[in-house]
């Protein structure tokens, strides 16, 4: 049980965000009131608290001097009339001296925080307009409530706008002091990965690829927050997994569901104090941003992994606005990026927030050294001899699926080729496919290491399938683009591959007979396609960029 929260604070006060940075204060069991205003507002909680109570006295901020003095005077009367032993603190030695003179009581300075940033980037905080804002020279102010001060202090040197002594104290405290006790020992980095419930296994596969490298190359503990029902696969790769339900899964109101996700994700962050939160999605989800800004959530950096090749019909950049709140937006490279017609093409995130943008090599879960030879692959899949073609069309919307399936079977029959139908590990076994004993299905994850088992592949053109086939396979490939509105521009990828001679493709509404016959003839002839791109380890590049964020400090 968590019990009451260990601090009292005004909702807009950023100091509690820094309190968890103090190893001596975080989780020590004492109650901390983050200001005299917070202590006055909830004096009863202070009186009832069974353990030690500390009150951080603050210098004058945006209030009127008389109001500030009155507040302090009332608090002193309450303290002197109470049997509660209260420790008074201030944000630095100068503030402690000043407040000791004002109160006539001993006031100790909070221990200095260790410096976490030593670069040249600076930002200025201001409360002149009311809520805390981040002022910038070349653009309008940013609302600071979206950021955790513990995170901001790892991104820049923080200055305070003039005329706000309390904010100056806060900024100085946040900047920390070189050589101060970090108190965080030799903990392995902790990374929380948020994967949405996408169509198929795209997000899960990409993040498994990256997570393996984070664990292997950086020794990171990676914990998945998974809306995907492929949580069992994640677990089988050895990662801790928290299974979640989407609002859609439950039929819940989005607002109600968001409240639960925000609270429970914040609880996870309080427990784990991760160094980094990564989301693989088209946009950052609100509960992630909100939970990260909560006091006690720690100082995790935030990265968004967002693939490109959006469909050209997805207009406007509103959906992308949230990426500005990330520290890093990473686009997994796409071999067909020249054909990218979507809104993310050439996008630089560094416009309103602090996000940097980077593009890696294509990310695949399977590496070149994990690809099995033909004999081993057939053995792994329990397949016998003869010409075999894999059909991997996923659960995606593909025009008239039944017509395509019939034509595929007919073309394969004519060419005396056996078809092996890939089934998603998340899908129900298809009873129709079981009606013909000569039609074989396989549900193996990942399938890419076994591609050599096949003399040809018919596939949809999702990110993972496309890059696995184009970099790890040298047999004939026929692409059949899916056209779900939430999917990437599969048609553009397929056309691009065809234009490079890497594959053939079945255009929407095009005549299937000739294309399928020509493709099956290539499969029959065991044709090789040597001109495809070399495999590059994009997963390692992404993990490297994320790892740099773990150690970033200017």
């Amino acid at each position, binding site marked *: *049980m*968590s*019990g*009451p*929260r260990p601090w009292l604070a005004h909702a807009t006060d950023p100091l509690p965000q820094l309190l968890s940075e103090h190893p001596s204060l975080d989780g020590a069991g004492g109650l901390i009131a983050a200001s005299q205003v917070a202590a006055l507002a909830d004096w009863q909680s202070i009186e009832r608290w069974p353990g030690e109570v500390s009150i951080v006295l603050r210098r004058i901020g945006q209030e009127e001097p008389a109001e500030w003095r009155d507040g302090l005077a009332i608090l002193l009367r309450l303290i002197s009339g109470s049997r509660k032993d209260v420790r008074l603190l201030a944000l630095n030695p100068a503030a402690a001296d000043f407040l000791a003179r004002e109160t006539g009581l001993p006031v100790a300075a909070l221990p200095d925080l260790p410096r976490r940033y030593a670069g040249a980037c600076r930002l200025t905080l201001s409360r002149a307009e009311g809520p805390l804002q981040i002022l910038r020279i070349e653009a309008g102010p940013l609302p600071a409530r979206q950021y955790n001060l513990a995170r901001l202090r790892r991104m820049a040197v923080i200055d305070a706008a003039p005329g706000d002594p309390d904010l100056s104290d806060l900024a100085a405290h946040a900047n920390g002091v070189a050589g101060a006790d970090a108190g965080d020992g030799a903990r392995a980095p902790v990374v929380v990965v948020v994967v949405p419930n996408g169509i198929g296994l795209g997000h899960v596969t990409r993040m498994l690829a990256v997570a393996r490298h984070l664990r292997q190359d950086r020794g990171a*503990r990676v*914990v998945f927050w998974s809306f995907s*029902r*492929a*949580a*069992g*696969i994640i*677990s*089988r*790769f*050895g*990662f*801790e*997994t*928290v*299974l979640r*339900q989407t609002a859609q*899964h*439950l*039929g*819940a*109101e989005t607002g*109600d*569901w968001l*409240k*639960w996700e925000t*609270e*429970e994700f*914040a*609880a*996870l962050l*309080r*427990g*784990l104090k991760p160094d980094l939160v990564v989301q693989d999605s088209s946009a950052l989800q609100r509960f992630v941003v909100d939970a990260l800004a909560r006091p006690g959530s720690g100082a995790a950096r935030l990265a968004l992994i967002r693939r490109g090749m959006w469909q050209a019909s997805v207009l406007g950049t509103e959906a992308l606005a949230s990426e500005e709140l990330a520290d890093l937006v990473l686009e997994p490279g796409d071999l067909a990026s020249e054909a990218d017609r979507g809104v993310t093409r050439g996008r630089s995130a560094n416009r309103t927030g602090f996000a940097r943008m980077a593009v890696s090599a294509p990310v695949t879960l399977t590496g070149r050294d*994990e690809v099995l030879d033909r004999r081993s692959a057939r053995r*792994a899949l329990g397949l016998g001899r003869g010409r075999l073609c894999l059909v991997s069309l996923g659960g995606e919307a593909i025009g008239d699926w039944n017509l395509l399936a019939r034509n595929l079977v007919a073309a394969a029959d004519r060419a005396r080729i056996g078809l092996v139908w890939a089934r998603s*590990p*998340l*899908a*129900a*076994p298809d*009873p129709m496919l079981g009606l013909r004993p000569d039609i074989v299905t396989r*549900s*193996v*994850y*990942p*399938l890419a*290491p*076994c591609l050599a088992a096949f003399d040809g592949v018919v596939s949809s053109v999702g990110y993972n399938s496309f890059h696995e086939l184009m970099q790890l396979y040298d047999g004939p490939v026929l692409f059949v683009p899916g056209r779900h509105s939430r999917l990437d521009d599969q048609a553009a990828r397929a056309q691009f591959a065809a234009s490079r001679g890497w594959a053939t493709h079945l255009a929407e509404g095009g005549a299937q007979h000739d294309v399928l016959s020509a493709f099956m003839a290539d499969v029959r002839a065991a044709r090789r396609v040597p001109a495809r791109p070399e495999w590059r380890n994009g997963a390692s590049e992404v993990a490297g960029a994320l790892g740099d964020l773990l150690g970033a400090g200017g």
Partner: protein
Amino acid sequence: MKVGGNTRDYDETLRRLEQDNDDLRGKLARHEFRQMQQELTSEDPFRLDVLGPQATAPGDVMLPDVDDVLLPRLPVPAGTIARDLLSPDLPVIAVHDDGLSGRPLAAALMGLLKTQYDKPFARLVFLCSGFEAVPFLGRYGFAVEQVGRADPATLLPRLRRRYGVVQIRSVGSGDLIARWQGG
């Protein structure tokens, strides 16, 4: 809307539509139930073939309770095998998998879900100690929580707040594991 004959026509159309809807829901539920039966009685239910080096996750991540915050109750879906709209008065019951897996779990689920299909008695939230039944339960539209090795009785306060769960029962025996005693 005009008065008279047109109103009657309109009402009649609505009634017919509602009836068609009910019929369709019933047919769909029957189809779903048969498919579910087929899956649960298959040779290797919940099978998941993962290639490559297998690793063991270090353990369960238990979320700290958030019992000091007021949160709204979330709905519990009826599942796609529900032939009728479930009454809002049905109790919400959490069903723990008793640590079962494979065919024993499939058999236990079959018994429970057959009863639920024939005569819905509750809205169900499944508590799974592992992940293997998650895709299956998700496909049929059930709420599912992965609870690891936690003592199921200790989960009741959160399940009560989140879904309004009144009981936790065992999937195999139907035995009561915990009952909500509070208000």
